[in-house]
């Protein structure tokens, strides 16, 4: 029973003492669980139409979302936070610490750890991917959704190049980007989140491939999953010597645009944002095995070599068997063969310091359940009294 404060209503400690235990109410937990249920079902149906990423953004990662453009509904993140606070409050104010309850307590503590771990993953985990052709190597992985402008001085054939990457920023027209270390001034004339090469440079035609220097870019509607978007940018470059050039950069092409400066040729490209890896990974060989007489894949495996800082070792990455090294994990993600028969292996790269938290949480929850049922078996639990319905 909450008593009305007769003394000072603004006494914070008194107010807290009155209200905090309410936070521990089981009814709040029930409401949260119910909301989570509804959100999960709703989000799953939404996903069928709009794709997983859009569903995650709207239902699962959000604090709230609007229905019909105006009616606010809490998102899963909000619900889980409330549930977290509710559970903590329960542990502090409501739960009775008895032997009979010990299993339950451990289980719920484990649940708290699970929620905390999911938050850590949500905030700090880094996911990227790495496609490698056979015999190719890389010390960076690619972001799935974000783009960057890469600029470098052409060092000549076969020499190592040092690439500087620049964030695209807001993508506003007229934005200035500082390429001064290359002796260039750059102004962003246009940036498209999703586009394709224009009519002037149709695929296959002689002008194609020169979208980087001459062709136009046609903006497209961005897909509901940014992973499917191919960005494009139009830059006005002015070198120190006064040479001006307008370049069309299309994210779907590997070929960079170039401009002559006093210091030599400078290359510019729009590409998926790179993330540095703690070592270099080289793909030696990738194999796809099929069941004979069918197109069904039996296994995909990649033989890779880890290079860096004097260390070199070979290992094999295949389905259900990732490579874990230096806090990064590499998974066999997919495989394809191009028209020339060259095989490419694609790895999913994950850096997640909170990776082990769900394991710990699950062990706690499972342990708590075992203790609870064992105790119940030995007559420690109270039988629920049943009343007429």
């Amino acid at each position, binding site marked *: 029973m909450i008593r009305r404060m007769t003394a000072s209503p603004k006494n914070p400690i008194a107010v807290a003492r009155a209200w905090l235990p309410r936070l521990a109410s089981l009814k709040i937990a*029930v409401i949260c669980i119910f909301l989570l249920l509804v959100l999960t079902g709703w989000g799953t149906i939404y996903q069928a139409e709009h794709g997983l990423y859009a569903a995650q953004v709207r239902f699962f990662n959000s604090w709230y979302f609007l229905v019909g453009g105006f009616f606010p509904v809490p998102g899963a993140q909000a619900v889980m936070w409330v549930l977290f606070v509710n559970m903590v409050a329960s542990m502090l104010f409501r739960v009775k610490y008895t032997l009979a309850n010990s299993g339950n307590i451990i289980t719920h503590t484990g649940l708290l750890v699970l929620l905390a771990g999911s938050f850590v993953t949500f905030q700090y985990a880094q996911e990227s991917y790495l496609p490698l052709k056979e015999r190719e190597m890389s010390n960076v992985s690619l972001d799935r959704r974000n783009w960057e402008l890469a600029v470098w001085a052409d060092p000549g054939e076969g020499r190592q190049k040092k690439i500087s990457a620049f964030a695209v920023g807001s993508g506003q027209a007229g934005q200035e980007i500082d390429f001064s270390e290359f002796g260039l001034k750059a102004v962003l004339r246009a940036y498209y989140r999703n586009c394709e090469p224009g009519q002037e440079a149709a695929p296959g035609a002689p002008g194609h491939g020169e979208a980087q220097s001459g062709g136009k870019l046609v903006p497209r509607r961005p897909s509901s999953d940014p992973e499917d978007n191919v960005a494009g940018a139009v830059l006005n470059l002015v070198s120190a010597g006064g040479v001006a050039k307008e370049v069309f950069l299309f994210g779907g092409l590997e070929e960079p645009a170039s401009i002559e400066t006093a210091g030599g040729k400078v290359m510019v490209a729009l590409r998926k944002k790179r993330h540095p890896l703690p070592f270099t990974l080289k793909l030696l060989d990738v194999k796809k095995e099929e069941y004979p007489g069918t197109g069904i894949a039996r296994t995909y495996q990649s033989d890779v070599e880890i290079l860096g800082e004097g260390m070199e070792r070979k290992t094999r990455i295949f389905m259900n068997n990732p490579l874990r090294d230096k806090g990064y994990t590499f998974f066999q993600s997919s495989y394809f063969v191009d028209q020339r028969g060259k095989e490419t292996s694609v790895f999913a790269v994950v850096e997640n310091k909170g990776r082990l938290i769900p394991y710990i949480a699950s062990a706690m929850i499972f342990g708590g359940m075992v203790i609870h049922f064992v105790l119940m078996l030995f007559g420690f639990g109270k039988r629920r009294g049943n009343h007429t319905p």
Partner: protein
Amino acid sequence: MKTLKTLIAAISLNLGLGLASAKDVPLEGLKSLPVLEGGRVKPLDTYARVTLLQLSSKSTFKGRPAIDWLARVMFTPTQAVDDAIFRINNTDVIYALGLEPQEGSRYTFALLGPAIGKLSQLADKAMKVDEKKRTPVESEIIRVANNLSLYLGIMNSFLFAVPHSDFRLEDPATAKALGLPEREGPYSYLEVRSRIKVITALTSTLMTEGGHGKSPTAWSPEEMGAFQLAQRYDNWSEHYRSFPIHLVPPLDKGTEMWLSPWGMATLANPDARAEAALASIKNMVDAYAAGKSDEFAAAVVGFRGFVNEGGTGVFKERSIGMEILYNALDPFYRAKILYGFAILASLLSMLFFRKWLHPVGMALLGAGALLQFVGIGLRIGISGQAPVTNLFETFVFVAWTTALLGLVLEFYQRKGYGLFVGAVAAFCIMLLSGKYDNDGDTIGVLVAVLNSNFWLTTHVITISLGYAGFCLAGVVGHIWLIQAAINRHDAEKLETLDRMTYAVMAFGLVFAFIGTVLGGIWADQSWGRFWGWDPKENGALMIVLWGILIFHARPAKLIGPMGMAAGSVIGIIVVMMAWFGINLLGVGLHSYGFTSGVANALASYVGAEAVFLAVTLFVIKRSMWMGARA
């Protein structure tokens, strides 16, 4: 699918066949010939059943086992043209092909043959439509076209062994010159093959590069005859080289692909063993066609010897034997029948003669569970994999679990409820499984991402146990609601049922939770993230959340036993949604094709449960209200 256009030729080719009718030739040896199909080695018996099932939705024909039918089609195809085995489900398709509706919706090859051109045309058009947007008619056309294509492959698989009008010689003198038997009728591909060196020698001088041969008008009758034979021979070799049925283990150890009889007949450099194998194949065909049982059996043994020799390390004799046993036993179908009778016995024992019907019911339920256990065990031996790897197997496993749980509950409680709910749940789930075995061979191969016996065993089995718990709890919930509607003052019965619901749902929740967690761990090992809000993950989460909701609403005094019973009934729906409702999402929202059969069934079920809940809750509530007024 081969375009039917190329196979239209095969139809005309078949008109040249003429054979004696085959009498009842025993097929024991034939049944157990191993064949590579769908990525795994299985007995011909399974191949026959699955193929017949695919074509006609039944695995027997006219009461005879499928292998009977298959042998007829393979060895004496002209005898099979009037077998009504092509099932067509859509009347629009029947009319589109210019056919008249037949009894049982099954059509013969003789009827479909003339319609092939139209079918091929329609199928090509239907294939161009995106799969999700196809109408039921288009889907059915494609299905029938694929089936016909499959049938054509099978019926021509031994064509090389019988005489064919394509290989005819006008002049008997040519036959002598080429070394072919002198007779009226045509030759078989094999006969031409045996003289191919002579034929090629003769024809090589006729048309050389640069046109330095004799002009065709100057060819002798021998040269003309030889040339025609050679042309037809080359055409056939090219066309039939890749026909099914893959009965011959790889001849060189460098490949995993098996050869079909045609593959053997068109080998570039056959050795003595291969020739011997071909000869025994020919003996099989001849003996069967002539109805000579002993010779047929001997030929099969001869061929099998060749297969065993080449098959060491490639297939396991024991697995083949197990599968034949499994096919004959049909354990799941029989278990389903036993469960049905167990329900009957249990009902009757509760309503009338309790004493002796109860152990009968227990025996029936136990026998069904035992049969399922044997069936599952055999499947593990046959496939070498974990027992639950596809949707069909989940149904079988969950049904088995509910039967076992029912038996355990009954031993513990001895009130008759355990037996009843176990039998009901097991029977209903096995009924459901029937909807998912028409895809053909239910023992499949594992796709790469599933290729891990450890996770398949732990994650899939725990989730299945979770499903079983919730399903069984839901059945108990139904009984609670019915009992309360009849007489809500019978506290003893209601308390027993309520405790049962609680215990069984707790079992389900624990395992559903463990299973979901194991799924997360597997996902972390495989894809790099513990949780991704994937539909299947969400389905499992919803089951867990539903269970947690009920188990928290109860101590919060938001619900009592009635709420729990109703909640358990809804729990079944949540489980169904997660189990196979999710699979409909990719299809259901955009297409109204054949698979909507499951969607409709699910919708009807949900509707029925809604009515049930409304009625029982209304009756109970009204009784409470009336009782309160008194």
